[in-house]
């Protein structure tokens, strides 16, 4: 769930998450630098809903100037901040990039915390870090030791004109980057006036205790975590596929952002690094 909500204008496709990752830079840890690329750990839903015209051709978004109604291309559009009613300050991309130039190339791990001490309220969005360029040895060393110690590296870095607090967490020899909310994004119960009164219903407590132990399992599985809406949508689409009147073919010029096969990305990057080592 992206927190910055203003509409995005698609610019150069190079900024999209290609096989090169949506961010690349170094992960540093003391004087050790590990070149990495960042990939989303979330998939899109298998079937995406789109807005279509009456004849089944997809609709696209167009940008217009509200004053002269001219159609605008990406180069005609700038970011503005309304500092007074109807008055805007224009902020250019290069100005934002220059604000925290170093942080946009480097995730500098200045401290490590116990993974279990990070409250789930802070977790925002998961990514994978894949090694990029050169040897993957420092990457694998860091991943192994962090996992064995149960420690996450904590840092802030800048990606796509936004600063992120991030926890680098190792799992199964891989490094993940979980973006975290900043403290001022998480409210406390007293901030919102949630009040609870002491007291319990002893009979209910006893019954609930019994219920909790009878329904406890070590973890969750695919069936109980299923996206039921996606399944219903998939069924509907399967049924309608055969109906010739329902299907419309329309190839768009614009590539919609390729789906990345993370398994292949890691396989290739790790293999490249070990070949280099053997040479």
């Amino acid at each position, binding site marked *: 769930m992206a927190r910055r909500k203003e509409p995005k204008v698609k610019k150069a496709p190079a900024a999209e998450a290609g096989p090169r990752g949506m961010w690349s830079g170094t992960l540093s840890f003391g*004087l050790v630098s590990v070149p990495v690329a960042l990939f989303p750990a979330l998939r899109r839903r298998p079937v995406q809903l789109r807005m279509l015209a009456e004849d089944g051709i997809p609709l696209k978004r167009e940008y217009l100037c509200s004053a002269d109604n001219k159609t605008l291309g990406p180069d005609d559009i700038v970011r503005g901040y309304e500092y007074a009613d109807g008055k805007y300050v224009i902020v250019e991309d290069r100005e934002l990039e220059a604000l925290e130039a170093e942080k946009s190339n480097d995730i500098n791990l200045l401290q490590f915390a116990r993974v279990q001490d990070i409250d*789930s309220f802070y*977790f925002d969005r998961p990514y994978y870090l894949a090694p990029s360029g050169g040897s993957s040895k420092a990457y*694998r060393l860091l991943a192994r030791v962090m996992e064995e110690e149960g420690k996450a590296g904590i840092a*802030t870095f800048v990606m796509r004109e936004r600063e992120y607090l991030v926890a680098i967490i190792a799992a199964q020899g*891989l490094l993940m980057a979980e973006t975290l909310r900043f403290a001022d994004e998480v*409210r406390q119960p007293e901030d919102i006036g949630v009040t609870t009164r002491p007291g319990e219903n002893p009979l209910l407590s006893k019954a609930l205790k019994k219920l909790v132990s009878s329904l406890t399992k070590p973890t969750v599985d695919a069936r109980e975590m299923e996206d039921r809406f996606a399944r219903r*949508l998939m069924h509907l689409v399967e049924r309608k596929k055969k109906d010739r009147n*329902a299907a419309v073919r329309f190839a768009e010029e614009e590539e919609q952002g390729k789906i990345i096969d993370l398994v292949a990305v*890691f396989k290739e990057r790790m293999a490249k690094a070990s070949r280099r080592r053997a040479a």
Partner: protein
Amino acid sequence: MTARAIWKGVIRLGRHEVPVQLYAATVDPAVHFRLLHRKDKQPVRQRLVHSETGKEVPRDSARKGAEIDRGVFVRLDEKELAELEPAASRTINVERFVADEALDHEWYDRSYYLGPDGDDKAYGSLVKVLQEEHKEGIARWVMRKKDYIGSLTVRQGVLALVTLRFWDEVVRPAEIESPPSKDLKPAEVKMARQLIVALARPFDPTQFRDEFNMKIRTLIQKKARGGKISLKKIRPKPQPPSLEQALKASLAAARGKGSHG
């Protein structure tokens, strides 16, 4: 500051019910921009157009469809889409419990507090049991015509729901082949471990601030007053010679810092 509840419901656990009110636990303090036309600084508006003809299509006459293959769309009508929607309900069904910390970070999405709504004692019982047993409930509910799955937990004596991602939405680490670690030298492993231990701190989110956001605010104020902006350049980082030497030097530096407080 007192926030308004955004939804009301009933937690159902077997035959038992706990009425609750739901409040958002997160806020967004980031600076928000508008898109402007560069030439006249007027706000940009959006419209929908037909991809082939470029003709405007009013939003309420837009239809929906699913892309089943690249460039192949299946039209779905309003009635079919309405049938896909989950049945409206006020019940948060707790179907299962897991130990606190059983779920990894990648599943958690968005958090809400649940305040009591009429039955304080039932609420108190549920808080007490979850705390004493160190358990999280796995719950399903429907809110604003959408299916949710979440973790029912306790924060500072208050019930909370954290929405969870669906199974297929997450690329789990187990799906990716683990890299080898045979070639790591014991000395390197040992030093890396010592370095991590030397840099270990309790996690304190209040230590970190969105400096970028603050700098954006300063930049905006400066520009609004008509001030000039100078752009900084990036300095390339020097590369140390070898992994082992880098670890050694880092360890020495971290320990030096540690001993001086």
